[in-house]
């Protein structure tokens, strides 16, 4: 754990795995998780997938404008969320809904955000999936790529300045490593050694361009920090146990003053980039099925079955239970309104929160709009 980056460079070249092809936990990275944690991980992975499935379908029904699934990548948010402490600050990307779900953000709140309705935490200002949860230490999702990376580093610098033990973690995709913000984050992390975990979720695809367009064919993304002396570790991103172990290792490094770690999670984007995307135009339909690292949920299930902790019947029951949880949440969420059904947000909300206090010209513009729409604010 205390090794400098140069002595552990091989971690950025190999693929850290715990679950082998026979679904058994093997090797030095086995975190030896107890049954309770494993079942909790599975439960939240199933819930995340059920949530995604429902939201994908309501988008198709025209109830929300847009959606982004995390299909095939659930183990990353759930495994890392379990490995981090509640006081650690998370700076998610747009495919990290599992972090919110694991930390206990109500599904109704996530749904209301997607609906831009009267229960929307963002007050109708953000596209669907741009959640936040300050009470659970999860930052606001931007929509611009990689901007949260240097912010997470700054947050971690703040933690060190204040003498606190909380660490920060952030996520970008393989494609976004090309952004300047990724490199700013790495440079500042290398210079100041703040307690931060920087994650690259390499799901092979940046909308239509494969990870080679971010330079992924030359060297691994995990190796991006080595030139700066930041240790990198390349992990099987469909192996919940490996993800948990690597995150735990990086978190302990950070918490004990050994600075930043870059983790690459090798996974596969199971669905389209978003509901606005059609992957059949640029990749084979059966590519995911041929992906050698499989489906993270199936792999965890097989592992649990092998350990005697789980049965197919129990799994079917869990999926049905989670579907009901999601269905119930959706019924409650739409009671706060949809884009086509009342109650609607008041348009005067548009003018709030631009500044802490509303300046005069915004009050005038608000009044002008309200008068035109025959409303009063």
């Amino acid at each position: 754990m205390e090794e400098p980056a140069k002595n552990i460079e091989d971690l950025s070249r190999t693929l850290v795995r715990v679950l082998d092809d026979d679904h058994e936990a093997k090797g030095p990275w086995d975190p030896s998780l107890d049954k309770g944690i494993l079942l909790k991980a599975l439960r939240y992975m199933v819930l995340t997938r059920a949530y995604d499935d429902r939201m994908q379908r309501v988008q198709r029904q025209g109830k929300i404008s847009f959606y982004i699934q995390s299909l095939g990548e659930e183990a990353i948010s759930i495994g890392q969320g379990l490995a981090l402490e509640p006081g650690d600050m998370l700076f998610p990307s747009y495919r990290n809904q599992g972090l919110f779900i694991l930390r206990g953000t109500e599904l109704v709140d996530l749904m209301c955000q997607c609906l831009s309705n009267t229960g929307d935490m963002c007050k109708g200002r953000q596209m669907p999936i741009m959640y936040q949860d300050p009470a659970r230490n999860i930052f606001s999702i931007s929509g611009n790529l990689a901007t949260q990376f240097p912010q997470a580093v700054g947050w971690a610098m703040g933690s060190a300045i204040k003498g606190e033990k909380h660490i920060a973690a952030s996520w970008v995709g393989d494609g976004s490593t090309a952004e300047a913000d990724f490199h700013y984050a790495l440079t500042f992390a290398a210079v100041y050694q703040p307690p931060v975990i920087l994650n690259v979720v390499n799901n092979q695809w940046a909308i239509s361009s494969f990870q080679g367009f971010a330079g992924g064919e030359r060297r691994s993304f995990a190796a991006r920090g080595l030139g700066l002396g930041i240790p990198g570790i390349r992990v099987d991103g469909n192996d919940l146990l490996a993800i948990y172990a690597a995150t735990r290792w990086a978190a302990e490094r950070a918490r004990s003053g050994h600075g930043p770690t870059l983790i690459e999670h090798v996974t596969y984007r199971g669905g389209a980039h978003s509901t606005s995307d059609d992957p059949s135009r640029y990749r084979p339909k059966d590519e995911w099925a041929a992906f050698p690292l499989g489906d993270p949920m199936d792999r965890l299930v097989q592992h649990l079955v092998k350990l005697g902790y789980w049965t197919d019947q129990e799994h079917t029951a869990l999926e049905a239970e989670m579907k009901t949880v999601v269905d119930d949440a959706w019924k409650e969420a739409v009671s706060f309104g949809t884009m086509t059904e009342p109650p609607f947000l008041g348009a005067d909300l548009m003018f709030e929160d631009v500044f802490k206090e509303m300046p005069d010209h915004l009050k005038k513009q608000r009044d002008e709009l309200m008068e035109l729409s025959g409303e009063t604010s």
Partner: protein
Amino acid sequence: MSQMNMIQAINSAHDLIMEKDPTVVVLGEDVGYFGGVFRCTDGLQKKYGEHRVIDAPIAEGGIIGTAIGMGVNGLRPVAEIQFADYIYPGFDQIVSELARLRYRSGGEFFSPVTIRTPCGGGIRGGQTHSQSPEGIFAHISGIKTVMPSNPYDAKGLLISAIESDDPVVFFEPKRIYNGPFDGDPDKPGVSWSSHPMGEVPEDYFNVPLGKAAVVEEGDELTIICYGTIVHVAQAAARLTGVRAEIIDLRTLFPLDVDTLIKSVEKTGRCLVAHEATRFCGYGAELVSTVQQECFWHLEAPIERVAGWDTPYPHAFEWKYFPGQKRVAAGIRKVMEAG
């Protein structure tokens, strides 16, 4: 009271606020051990330590991005961008993140970052050390934009900026760091000691954001300006003998519209002057506002004097800079019209 130039006034503002509020941190290129290329943060690292006065890598996007994260973590960061001309690598972090964090999160997150940056020409800086990009920032919803014209205001406004829970971009006209400049490069430089606004309280005080100052009263013409041009406009008005009311905006956003209206309703004539380029410049907003609010009081078209719409040229600096002659010509044009 004490004699201070603008650099000392800015330094004093940092010192007082850092002493008062332990969450204030300073970061930027060369700001720590060295004390800043213009010396605005001189001595602060020695006094407050490396954890509060942080030398940063040469990466403006990283400086602003990490400052935002520190702000989210309860600190109150003051980021120095060494020259306004260097701010663009951080532009996305300012526009897409800093300015909109409060809005996009429904008021649940904010980051009270102040970005200080020296701007303007007249120092032989060529096109990469002379720009006045304030109009670009005033155009963005969610940030406040400030430019003082003297040491007293620099200190008082900077304290207000740092204390503000809204992000502020604080432009420092570097030509007048050491003394007021009336636009005549052939005259020997003068120091702030001969100027009343070089008298600055040593203790804490503030100048509120969003309030303009009437620096000279007059009844024939209103000149709206800010930064270095305030001093140029005063000299140009004297040159023409016109009794001009000169308004120093001090804060570009939020704009103190009431002070402008009151003055133009009295004078009936208006000239807008700034160093920045003219096309889509901040002056266009001023002209539009005055036209809309004071149309029936206007006796002549509003005149605009600005930098030419070219990059800032090294060899032709004084042909580019809107100096006394150009401002005086603008004054005569407004006075002769109508």
